[in-house]
């Protein structure tokens, strides 16, 4: 029944970028009571994958995304990134890996207040080395150009619309050309139309840079854009047939 390891199945002819095996995440709330936020998660994400995760509020979506983003560690099971067990990495190594390989997009945009769009997009490059560090202004303005904000680079986030802010956030997430983009309800704070435009853009730039894209969403219209679909239900992850 199992496919021989030496012959990769069609569409999965690369080793996975991220791989979760029987991952659980348990938090201790009051005293001895434990809350199983994630239970027995198995998931492989390959380069250039595009997948969506839907689920009710409190089902553990953000918790899963934090694990994928190396912001958190599993309670049990193994999580490997590029074949490395993340538990074996120190905090600094995880931070560097995160900076170079992962880009985050948040529902609330999370732009740094008081900094221009350009400075916001330059922020991740401050943690880079070599060319990315020294050419940070050029790289950041090119990225802002790409998301259609070339003429608003000196603007502060407070002067930008929600859609524009999220485009700045996309530019910031992609400026270090990560292999994995994690978007936690990227359209949650936008109206349907703007959300659609932003998702269109996100899909495009992710495809251009060859990054894998994981989108968490409540919105079925957003979910269908992905190639692979998952549902998280009370901490259990299941593949889902494409929703209508």
């Amino acid at each position, binding site marked *: 029944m199992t496919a021989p390891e030496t012959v990769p199945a069609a569409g999965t002819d690369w080793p996975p970028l991220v791989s979760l095996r029987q991952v659980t995440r348990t938090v201790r709330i009051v005293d001895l009571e434990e809350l199983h936020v994630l239970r027995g998660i198995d998931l492989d994400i390959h380069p250039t994958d595009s997948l969506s995760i839907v689920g009710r509020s409190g089902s553990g979506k953000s918790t899963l995304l934090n694990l994928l983003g190396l*912001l958190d560690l599993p309670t049990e099971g193994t999580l490997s990134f590029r074949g490395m067990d993340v538990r074996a990495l120190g905090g600094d190594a995880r*931070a560097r890996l995160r900076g170079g390989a992962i880009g985050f997009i948040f529902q609330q945009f999370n732009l740094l207040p008081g*900094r221009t769009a350009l400075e916001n997009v330059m922020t991740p490059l*401050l943690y880079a080395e*070599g060319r990315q*560090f020294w050419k940070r202004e050029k790289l950041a303005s090119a990225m802002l150009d790409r998301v259609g904000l070339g003429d608003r680079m000196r603007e502060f986030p407070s002067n930008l619309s929600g859609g524009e802010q999220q485009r700045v956030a996309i530019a910031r997430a992609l400026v270090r050309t990560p292999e994995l983009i994690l978007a936690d309800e990227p359209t949650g704070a936008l109206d349907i139309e703007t959300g659609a435009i932003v998702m269109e853009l996100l899909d495009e730039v992710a495809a251009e840079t060859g990054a894998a894209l994981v989108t968490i969403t409540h919105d079925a219209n957003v979910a269908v854009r992905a190639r692979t679909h998952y549902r998280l239900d009370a901490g259990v992850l299941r593949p889902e047939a494409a929703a209508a």
Partner: protein
Amino acid sequence: MTALIGAVIEAFSELRIHKTRVLLALLGVMLSVAALTSVVALGNMASAGMVQTSERMGGRAATLGVSTPSAGSDQAAVVAAYAEVVDRYSIEYSSLRVDTFLGIRTPAGRIDAMGLLIEPDYGTMRRMNVVDGRWFTDGDTERLAPVMIVNEAFHTLMGSPDITTDPGVELLGERDVKAVIVGILADDYSGAQPQAYLLKDQTDRWELAGVQGAPPTLEAWVPAGLADELTARITADLKAQFGPDVSVYRQDYAAQGDPYGGLTLVIGGVAGLVLLLGAVGLLNISMVTVKYRVREIGIRRSFGATSGRIFFGVMMESVVATSVAGVAGVMLAVAVVSHPRVQPMLAAGATDLPPFPIGAALLGVGSAIAVGALAGLIPALVAVRVKVIDAIRY
């Protein structure tokens, strides 16, 4: 390398964002640094002034006063014995000294002025800085006509003649001799008695009045570390020659330990307290800023900032800011201390006006940086402990 530059860039951007808050805190740091630097500088300068005054009174550290009452009135033997002491112990600066009275003719009639018969080295040993004219040179010793240096009281008594006209003073003795005033010294205190300095070699030659009686004493400026040993040796040497009544003792202000050490300590204590207040103010502001920035720190971490980088960044911010404030504070202090209205208050009695002490300036900048590091340390520790997940959860 890029991490360091990156952290400084972040620090500057952070400071720009929190302009008002930071400016207020920095104003506090700047003022404390200015206060610290001024207090230390003023203290240093004032005590330098006091030391100078003391040095004029009793010589520099360490000055040995040598006298030999039991030698009787055999001047030549005493002078020869002193010369031998100076030679034997390779004493670089020394001067014979005779305190006497000089009969002088003034426009108002004859008076007796205090006279000090000395050698040229005495000027260096006592920091005798002339306000007009010059001090004695070795060449003066050879000159036939006696030269003299007088204090301002004496100069006034003579009708304040212009020194460039080589004003003469008639010294009254068995033979009257005319001496030329070549230099004028400031009075030690206001209302000082008229006083004149003459070279002992010259007065010997002219057999001036009142000189013959007392044998001279010797003043020797020696390294402070050798003072005790030399005191013992010179005493022994002279006792062997002149009998028991020989005295050699330290006469400079530092003989009983540095009397200004206590002052320095008090000044240091006050300054430290002032700075501590500045640090607490800054710490308070930085703590508020960190709380406000938990979310931002979370965002930065999600884009790859290591915890070391976050720590360093918050710390750097504080240090960059206080360094700037420290330099500004030191400049303010220099401006205050060297203000023409402040200077004379410190320098009362000092002839070498002490310059702004570099040490105080360095202390000011250094302590500003230290305060920055200290005030940055606690917020930096708080910043590192920020849980990224909680920080970016809405």
